[in-house]
């Protein structure tokens, strides 16, 4: 199945999903940081693989990434990506010391970072489930720090079986001047985005 163009109503629905998911995650982050977290309007689009990688500032850009595979009523991936300096800022904001870069984090710092990103990803997913009423199972989040291109190889090779593009629902958020820029990327399977749309259309009555 090939993803066709969406009408504006579909885009609105998918945008709302990105909004609710990231909005709840932003609230969770603002509680952790005890500060304000701003969120962008979600970007919804069908992207070629190369364009997807460019969303994360190019294939060699180093990111801190959490990947969750979802299945059930919705199949696909949720990727939460943080720029490395933002990951360090995040640690500083929760009162932790850190080394010169993300590769010299202590075990405690690393597990703190993993835990925070797990909470945010879990919050995102719960919000999407609540909104859509879909039953979605998620794998244990998997954590990596590496090149954006290498990390995105995972969803790309999954979708590569059916086409050369993916549907992306992306929301960015940042916290005040410290600029914790995080990105949630919801990448549903081609057959699942229709389930997503339907779940919300039914709710409209």
């Amino acid at each position, binding site marked *: 199945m090939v993803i066709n163009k969406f009408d504006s109503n579909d885009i609105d629905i998918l945008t709302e999903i990105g909004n609710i998911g990231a909005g709840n995650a932003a609230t969770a982050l603002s509680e952790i940081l005890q500060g304000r977290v701003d969120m962008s309007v979600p970007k919804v689009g069908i992207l070629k693989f190369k364009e997807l990688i460019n969303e994360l500032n190019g294939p060699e850009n180093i990111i801190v990434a959490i990947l969750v595979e979802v299945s059930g009523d919705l199949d696909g991936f949720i990727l939460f990506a943080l720029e490395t300096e933002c990951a360090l800022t995040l640690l500083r904001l929760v009162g932790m010391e850190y080394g010169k870069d993300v590769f010299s984090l202590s075990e405690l710092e690393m597990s703190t970072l993993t835990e925070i990103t797990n909470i945010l990803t879990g919050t995102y997913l719960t919000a999407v489930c609540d909104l859509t009423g879909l039953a979605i199972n998620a794998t244990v989040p998997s954590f*990596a720090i590496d090149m954006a291109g290498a990390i995105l190889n995972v969803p790309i090779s999954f979708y590569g079986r059916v086409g050369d593009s993916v549907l992306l629902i992306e929301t960015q958020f940042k916290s005040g001047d410290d600029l914790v820029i995080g990105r949630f990327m919801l990448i549903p399977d081609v057959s699942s985005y229709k389930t997503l749309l339907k779940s919300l259309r039914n709710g409209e009555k």
Partner: protein
Amino acid sequence: MTIVSGGIIIVGIGELFATTSPTKLQALGLGSCVGVALYDPIAKVGGLAHVMMPESNGSSNELRGKYADTAVANLLSDMQKLAARKENIVAKLVGGASMFSLSHDVFRIGEKNVIAAKKSLNDLGIRILAEDVGGSVGRTMLLHTDTGEVEVRYVNRESRKI
């Protein structure tokens, strides 16, 4: 395919490119993807495929480097057009990592890509000179078409030449 300064051509995901010396070929941010570098030291012709998946199963694609089996054959044919000879061509493989340790089959794709690339090379009688594959690390590779040397870079360890 993108041309950048310094005589380097970047071969994007699923793409392939063949060229004559001294143009360099680069594949950025290889995770489970495999960079297949072919080189004819006599003709000084090099080629690079940024392979995403193991087998085409007969499906054709506008991305000529997408599948290991068709990518190797396509790249060989492009190089032959530049006067490279199959019997002189050697190969080097980079990438094929598992970036995450999740349950899904897709997380073994790196390993499968490497196996498929090796099989395609063997079927065509192309010798593999060196490889830097597997593990859970992202890689960037640069093929020097004047020497056949491949530079491999990582985010958190010393780069190496193969």
